[in-house]
């Protein structure tokens, strides 16, 4: 039974990882690509780690797998936030169909322009 659950989780996790990589290659701009990297990528790795916990069915392994998942879930948003801010600030081009850019009033052409913060 555990073997079947593990096999299903392995296939699902690798499929989500593949979707993440496909999105990384095909999506139109940096900020949109970050969706693929952080969400689908973390989900894929997390599913495979849960599969590992099911496969060995030992407390030590399961706890280590859970620790790895918790670490991924904690660090992925932090890294994504840092990259997104640096990307926007360094002036990456947004997709031509982007219709809302709330930071545009604060950051002007790669420079910080808000007088309240400096």
């Amino acid at each position, binding site marked *: 039974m555990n073997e079947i659950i593990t096999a299903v989780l*392995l296939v699902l996790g690798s499929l989500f990882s593949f979707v993440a*990589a496909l999105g990384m290659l095909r999506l139109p701009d940096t900020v949109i690509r970050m969706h693929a990297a952080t969400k689908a990528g973390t989900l894929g790795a997390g599913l495979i780690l849960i599969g590992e916990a099911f496969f060995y069915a030992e407390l030590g392994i399961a706890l*280590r797998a859970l620790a790895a998942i918790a*670490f991924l879930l904690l660090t992925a948003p932090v*890294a*994504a936030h*840092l990259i997104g801010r*640096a*990307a926007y600030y360094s002036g990456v081009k947004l997709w031509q169909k982007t219709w809302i850019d709330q930071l545009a009033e604060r950051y002007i052409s790669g*420079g910080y322009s808000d007088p309240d913060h400096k």
Partner: protein
Amino acid sequence: MPVDSSPVAIAGQFALALLLISIILALARLVKGPAAADRIVALDLISILIVAFLAAYSIYAGETSFLDVAIGYALIAFLGTVALARFLMRSALKRSENPETEENMRRHE
């Protein structure tokens, strides 16, 4: 290692192959760029994919110590991503502080 015809072995081979293809696709984005931020995002995804690959290989090979390798790799990869993002942020800051420098003039041409 599980028996060759067991569901875990078959799923493991499938998952390892698919993860390798995914890493190659992310590498293509790493090469293509075009901005430095794109490369950092691609590198971040590659590190997450390598963690997934290590976990899958640990199941496939029946070797639990690869799980520890995956945890350690995730730690170091996070630090690397943060360092690269801060580096990009700092160079962008420098550019906006002295916009008249030669390098910046070249960039705007």
